[in-house]
């Protein structure tokens, strides 16, 4: 009896990190029931401990590589890289949420449990070696996020966000399953390596194959918010609690890119020419719509929503470029994007307090006078999002466009940099308001040690990666090796 338990535990080693997160999530639910709404912030710290444990396990498991559970779960440097990004996004997401949830009066333990479930789902997506695992991970993530988006039960905008995301998300999952079933019908297997092996010998002109590829692209495009599958983004981002928006803009989007890279640059690699063409079209559209629509926004969350669409566009340039360098550039980009965007949302959250929504861009007027530190941090995050050196955002974009030029897509790089220049206008508008206008009224900002910690982590990452990107760059390049 004992030996068989040990045996099972031993077999489960590759998914220990996921197990840890799920165990912590379940225990949060149980403990929360007994706490009765008190000490909920302790649950937040408790969840963070879970993340730290899972992260250390992932790092320890770094030496273990291979396919497990009949090839449905893969452990490779690629998945490890993404998992670390997810821990970071989830950890920052929890840190910036604690105080905010108090203010919104929605501080309940389920919040943290759902965050952990979503993170476990994202990890499964990154590790997926099988179409079924992708679907499992994606749904675990998506279902948790639907609930989180509608977490402010008494707020109609939040309800709308949850419902809208759920309906459209379900629709996109349906398309994905349809695409997967077509692919299964052709290849006779759901295993990613098996499909690759099939494609190497298959007739690539088969329209059904093309159709299934397009369907996968549509559904993954939905997750990463690529145009024209982005319609849900502005409303959901605006309506969801700000802490959830921050997490959504980093976590699920990055997870979407993990799957996108795995499926399109690995499994469907024989179709690279078609994929690259379609993706570069998507990338141009996404950069165009994201950046142009962001110009006219008055709500900071909507602006950052469109900005996150635009950033998905830059990352798609890297996916379209393909190859080792393209994939590595996307990985570095999503990591950098996650920290700088979470940082920007961290400052946005500081403006929300009782009696003031703090979501209008005009609310930032005079912040440079009333709260110098917050304004300065926002300045750094915004310049980083614009892609101005010496901030990390520049390094990310540089790598993306470098891989595009290397792949011979100079035109795509030119389109990308021009849209990136346009983006300067709406990011700088916030800086302009902070530093060049007088405050409308005296107001203090919401501060908490957790939020301060989150901002400190993001700003340090943004500057350090911007000035000395070598370690993370090497990490990203080394992690991509197993993918191709």
């Amino acid at each position, binding site marked *: 009896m004992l030996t068989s338990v040990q045996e099972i535990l031993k077999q489960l080693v590759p998914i220990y990190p996921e197990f840890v997160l799920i165990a912590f999530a379940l225990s949060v639910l149980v403990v929360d029931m007994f706490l009765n709404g008190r000490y909920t912030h302790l649950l937040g710290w408790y969840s963070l401990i879970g993340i730290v444990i899972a992260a250390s396990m992932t790092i320890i498991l770094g030496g273990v590589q291979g396919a497990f559970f009949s090839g449905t779960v893969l452990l490779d440097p690629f998945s490890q890289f993404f998992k670390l990004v997810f821990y970071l996004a989830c950890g920052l997401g929890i840190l910036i949420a604690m105080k905010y949830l108090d203010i919104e009066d929605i501080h309940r333990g389920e919040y943290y449990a759902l965050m952990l479930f979503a993170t476990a789902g994202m990890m499964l997506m990154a590790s997926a070696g099988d179409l079924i695992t992708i679907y499992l991970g994606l749904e675990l993530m998506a279902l948790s996020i639907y609930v989180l988006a509608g977490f402010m039960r008494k707020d109609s905008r939040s309800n709308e966000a949850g419902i809208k995301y759920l309906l459209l998300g379900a629709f996109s999952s349906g398309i994905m399953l349809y695409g997967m079933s077509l692919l299964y019908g052709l290849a006779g297997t759901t295993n990613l390596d098996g499909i690759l092996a099939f494609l190497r010998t298959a007739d690539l002109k088969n329209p059904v194959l093309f159709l299934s590829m397009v369907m996968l692209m549509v559904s993954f495009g939905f997750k990463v918010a690529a145009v024209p599958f982005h319609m849900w983004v502005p409303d959901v981002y605006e309506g969801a609690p700000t802490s959830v928006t921050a997490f959504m803009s980093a976590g699920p989007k990055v997870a979407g890119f993990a799957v996108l890279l795995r499926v399109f640059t690995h499994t469907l690699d024989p179709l690279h020419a078609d994929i690259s063409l379609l993706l570069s079209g998507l990338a141009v559209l996404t950069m165009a719509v994201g950046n142009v629509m962001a110009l006219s926004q008055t709500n900071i969350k909507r602006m950052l929503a469109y900005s996150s669409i635009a950033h998905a566009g830059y990352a798609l340039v890297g996916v379209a470029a393909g190859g080792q360098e393209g994939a590595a550039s996307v990985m570095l980009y999503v990591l950098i994007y996650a920290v700088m965007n979470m940082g920007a949302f961290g400052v946005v959250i500081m403006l929300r307090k009782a009696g003031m929504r703090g979501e209008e861009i005009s609310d930032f007027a005079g912040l440079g006078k009333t709260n110098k530190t917050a304004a300065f941090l926002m300045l750094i995050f915004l310049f980083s999002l614009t892609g*101005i050196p010496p901030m990390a955002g520049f390094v990310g974009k540089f790598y993306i466009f470098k891989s595009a*030029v290397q792949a011979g897509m100079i035109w795509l790089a030119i389109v990308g940099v021009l849209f990136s220049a346009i983006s300067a206008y709406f990011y700088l508008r916030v800086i302009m308001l902070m530093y*060049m206008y007088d405050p409308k009224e005296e107001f203090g900002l919401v501060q908490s040690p957790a939020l301060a910690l989150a901002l400190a982590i993001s700003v340090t990452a943004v500057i350090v990666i911007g000035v000395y990107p070598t370690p993370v760059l090497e990490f990203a390049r080394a992690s991509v090796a197993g993918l191709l």
Partner: protein
Amino acid sequence: MLELIPNQLGFPLLSLMIFVPLAGAVILLAVRDARAARWIALLFSIAEIGLSVPLLANFDGSIAHMQFGESLPWIKDWHINYRIGVDGISVLFVGLTALLTTISIMVSWTAIQDRVREFMIAVLFLEAGMIGVFVALDLFLFYIFWEAMLIPMYLLIGVWGGPNRLYAAIKFFLYTLVGSVLMLVAILAVYFSAGGTFDVLALMNHPFGHTFQMWAFAAFFAAFAVKVPMFPFHTWLPDAHVEAPTAGSIILAGILIKMGAYGFLRFSLPFFPSAAISWTPAIMTLSVVAIIYGAYMAFAQTDFKKLIAYSSVSHMGFVTLGIFALNSQGVEGGLLQMINHGVSTGALFLAVGVIYERTHTRMIADYGGIAAKVPVYAAYLLIITLSSIGLPGTNGFVGEFTILLGAFQYKAVYAVIASLGIILGAGYMLWLYQRVAFGTVTNPHNEHLQDMNLREIAAALPLLVLVFGVGLYPNAAFQVMHASTENLIKHVQAKAALAPVAAQAANALLGQ
């Protein structure tokens, strides 16, 4: 060809010049008191001048190589190095940057009252960026400094500028950024075309095919022409100058707009010589258009600063005219005129700043007859005016004269039209001086105008010394730059002669 001679001084001089202002900016983050912030910024900027003394003293003008070289691996995966050094083309700009930054801080002593600490941080950060641009010998490193500079300059204009500062700041930022990002793509194309290197000295010797050169040159041109600014990319400059605080205008006119022309000399010409030669007629034409157009516009201005801004467009036309004449007189004259223009226009903006601080108006019509009230100021303004016109004995004369020599050798007609610009320049500057200084006091507010105080005189003095120093003994400057400019010309001609061969070789490789 060109080599990077390692720094022999025993301490990393150029790195210090980049990081001393940065250290000053970081220290200022912890300072709360405005008065202390001013003094700390001044001390750090003077330390920078102190560092430029061993730089100029130990610089060997007899060789064209890059001196005081430092090279450290930075981002190995992309073959990027922290590689810096100076030659005769860049060394004077480093000194000028140190000087003008200090002067900017001095003229802002009382003019800036709001958020002094942040102002000084921006100025010091900007100084580090400017030095970095001039010493960087790795394209990636260069681009980092080139773009990072935008941040403090944007803030200087936008936060401490005039009433219309928001428009001016964003216009400045977007114009420059659009030009720069196109250059970035070209930098990447150059990197891959040359087999994966950002090393400027290696790229100088890489034979790029002619078609490639044409495109890459155009993309670099987008960045540099906006910065110079060349007609018709100049429209951001008058707005930026008018709205910028005095310190911002001095740095903008003195250093920032020189970077465009510096970029031509450092990158465009050596990398893409055959494209440069192909583009020359167009650029020469744009240059003379800028000379005449800038002068013509300057006549029409009622705003003191806007007039100087348009005169800058005209004067920078001379610079590009000289550079693209592609002979030694032209290039040397262009280079010297960049320094000269930095000195004279910096001094002119200083003059505007001094008087603006007292009267809070930039309208020329609000002045008139102030010579009687402020004799020292009037004398100062006169000297600077004459220097700007290019009166023999001042620095302006030497530069413009040499440029005209060069342009004449290229094609006489350009020199003839350009000399028309000199006459026009004399016209609008003297007319300006007449309207401001001569006659009786027309504006009652100016009856009790205070003359320049000691601090302002101290700030102006080094510029006056340079006006006459370069004017009377230009050889001091020529000696520093001569070896490098000669080498540049030779390099361009030799490499341009090679280019068709290289293109044929490439075509042969591609099987065409």
